[in-house]
């Protein structure tokens, strides 16, 4: 080995140590970055769970036990007894207002019971604590409550209860629930699906099976890709201008004679569903196009070879094979729509609704509810928001699980 070669070899060996060391350092950097992402997710979930369970101290304006009639406690009283209680304790104005929202004859017993609790007993939260505080400082909390609020009842409770899911909105945190919001979400999404799924799949079929490579069809394709990148709030503004304002007669239900024209605003579940439909349409189209494109040409050629027309081939061979992919993509798009908040705020979601919504009624949805509760400064509403978030995530998670199952169950390899 020549002198020159030897020194080069020496340099290489020396450098190699440094190069490997730098490589190792960066490997750790890359790994740590990845872990930070996962940690962020964990923290986010723990932060929410931390708020859903914990100590709550609350007291009623009057003791619930004072409403016992003939020895029957409030929980076991019949509909009529509850109704009499309401009539006796509410001002006639408030009574009539409730009656106008929904006639008392049509209200269920549990509904009336909730009303009595909300309007007459009026439980107020005087303090609430997170799970972490409740576990680590339990004795301080107990002392604080007994010294500051001797009448208050201290309970270790989960904010997410069956009652929370089943009861309606309320101005008091103890009795508030997400029933209206969940129903609102389901109805809105139903309309979104009915609108966006057929239109989206039809558009995908046109673009994949019929469209020739002309400038116009390329424009349509580029346009769809761009629409998928438009911020959701812009769709909200569009919905406000089109569905709420221009199509007000249709979206408020006046055309069908369902609603009194004087009070119609167009800020209905129908408008919300259609707005979300516009929002997820490009996503559904793009996903469906991919699944249709994945169906092998051989299937189409076989269809044509047997004398089927284009439409017959698409209907009997292409679509059934593409369907699992289309459905998976649609479900993912829908789970995106369920979580959307911004466009619905712009379209005009309401705050207080104390009845089950219909297509042409004012609306609120789960994310809207979370937003409104989060925006309030008091702690107890943050706990409610956390409970509503858990409900929201549970709905989305089950949808995503369905999508994954669907993909695994029906996925075919060619």
């Amino acid at each position: 080995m020549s002198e020159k070669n030897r020194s080069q070899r020496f340099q290489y060996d020396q450098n190699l140590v440094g190069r490997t060391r730098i490589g190792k350092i960066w490997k750790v950097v890359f790994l740590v970055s990845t872990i930070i992402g996962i940690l962020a997710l964990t923290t986010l979930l723990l932060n929410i769970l931390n708020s859903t369970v914990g100590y709550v101290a609350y007291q009623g304006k009057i003791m619930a036990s004072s409403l016992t009639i003939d020895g029957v406690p409030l929980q076991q009283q019949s509909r009529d007894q509850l109704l009499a209680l309401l009539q006796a304790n509410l001002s006639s104005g408030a009574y009539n207002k409730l009656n106008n929202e929904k006639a008392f004859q049509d209200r269920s017993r549990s509904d009336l019971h909730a009303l009595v609790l909300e309007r007459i007993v009026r439980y107020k939260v005087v303090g609430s604590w997170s799970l972490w505080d409740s576990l680590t400082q339990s004795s301080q909390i107990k002392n604080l409550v007994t010294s500051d609020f001797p009448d208050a009842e201290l309970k270790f409770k989960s904010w997410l209860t069956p009652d929370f899911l089943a009861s309606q909105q309320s101005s008091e945190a103890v009795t508030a629930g997400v029933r209206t919001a969940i129903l609102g979400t389901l109805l809105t999404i139903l309309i979104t699906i009915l609108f966006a799924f057929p239109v989206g799949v039809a558009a995908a079929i046109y673009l994949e099976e019929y469209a020739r490579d002309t400038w116009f069809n390329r424009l349509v394709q580029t346009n769809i890709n761009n629409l998928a990148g438009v911020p959701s709030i812009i769709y909200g503004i569009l919905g406000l201008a089109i569905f709420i304002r221009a199509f007000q007669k249709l979206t408020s239900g006046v055309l069908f004679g369902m609603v009194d024209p004087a009070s119609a605003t167009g800020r209905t579940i129908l408008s919300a569903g259609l707005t979300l439909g516009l929002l997820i349409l490009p996503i559904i189209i793009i996903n469906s196009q991919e699944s249709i494109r994945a169906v092998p040409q051989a299937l189409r050629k076989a269809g044509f070879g047997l004398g089927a027309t284009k439409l017959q081939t698409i209907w009997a061979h292409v679509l059934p094979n593409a369907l699992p992919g289309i459905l998976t993509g649609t479900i993912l798009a829908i789970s995106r729509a369920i979580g959307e908040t911004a466009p619905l705020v712009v379209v005009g979601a309401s705050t207080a609704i104390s009845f089950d919504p219909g297509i042409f009624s004012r609306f609120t949805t789960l994310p809207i509810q979370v937003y409104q509760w989060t925006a309030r400064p008091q702690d107890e509403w943050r706990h409610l928001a956390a409970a509503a978030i858990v409900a929201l995530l549970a709905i989305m998670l089950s949808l995503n699980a369905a999508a994954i199952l669907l993909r695994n169950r029906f996925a075919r390899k060619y």
Partner: protein
Amino acid sequence: MNEIQNTMEERPMYPTKASGLKNRRILGETLIRSLLFLAGIFSILTTLAIIYELGKEAWLFFRLPEVNLWQFLTGTSWQPHINEFGVLPLVTATLVTTFIAMLIAIPLGLATAVFLSEYATNRSRNTIKPVLEILAGIPTIVYGYFALTFITPLLRFIFGSDVVEIYNTGSAGIVMGILILPLIASISEDALNAVPRSLREAAYGLGATRLEVAIKTVIPAALSGIAAAIILGISRAIGETMIVAVAAGAGPNFTLNPFKGAETMTGHIVRISGGDLSYDSIDYNSIFAIGLLLFSFTLLLNIVSQRIVRRFREVYE
């Protein structure tokens, strides 16, 4: 793109000289074909509607005697009640949150992408990727809640609660970064994965270490995809609404200080339209003007990202 064109050419022609087919059947096919066509151009109608509505109401806004376009674009105060309509406070707040978000999302997202594509074993990749996808699928209002109830108290604890306001652009930006991280990671990882094995093996053959292969060979080859991912991330951050609506504060504020509250363009639109907005009021028109600005920003970024992918993509056989 290549794939699409190939399938288009291979596609059998529509049977025009179908001598054996009944006319009635062709009629039905044409009808359905037209319906499908209508669905196909529905997206064009959506775009036209967006441009028309934003343009029309923004035009009405700028025609008002209180407003002029130059002041709108350069004014540093947005106070509708005293007729000051300068959009800059809203724009700077958007830029501050976006900048902070990118400061977090770009390095972490790229590092995650490199780790997943170059270092991770198949097993760990198959567990980490779904986790990141879950992170990307959580509704943004949940991130807003996280910003307000976790990151803000954390910032106030670290920097002192007299420095950090309850509503501040910093915590909104940080959480926005966490939101966009998986987006950048996932798109960049796809780009890195698309780089052919032969390139990596050639670099290994020349004696490169794993890091050198990643930094000097794979990343340059995937640069167009990575750039597109970053631009998409920026566009997403500019249009992000609920995080800033919850955590960044209400009320326009012309400041670059991330510890102060300031309203972004999207946050302003949400707050103004939250109440019952009456049509043709100056507020109603103003959200369309701001919306138009927002739409132009994101559209421009999206087009640039598509251009980059098309122009600079390295094509491998």
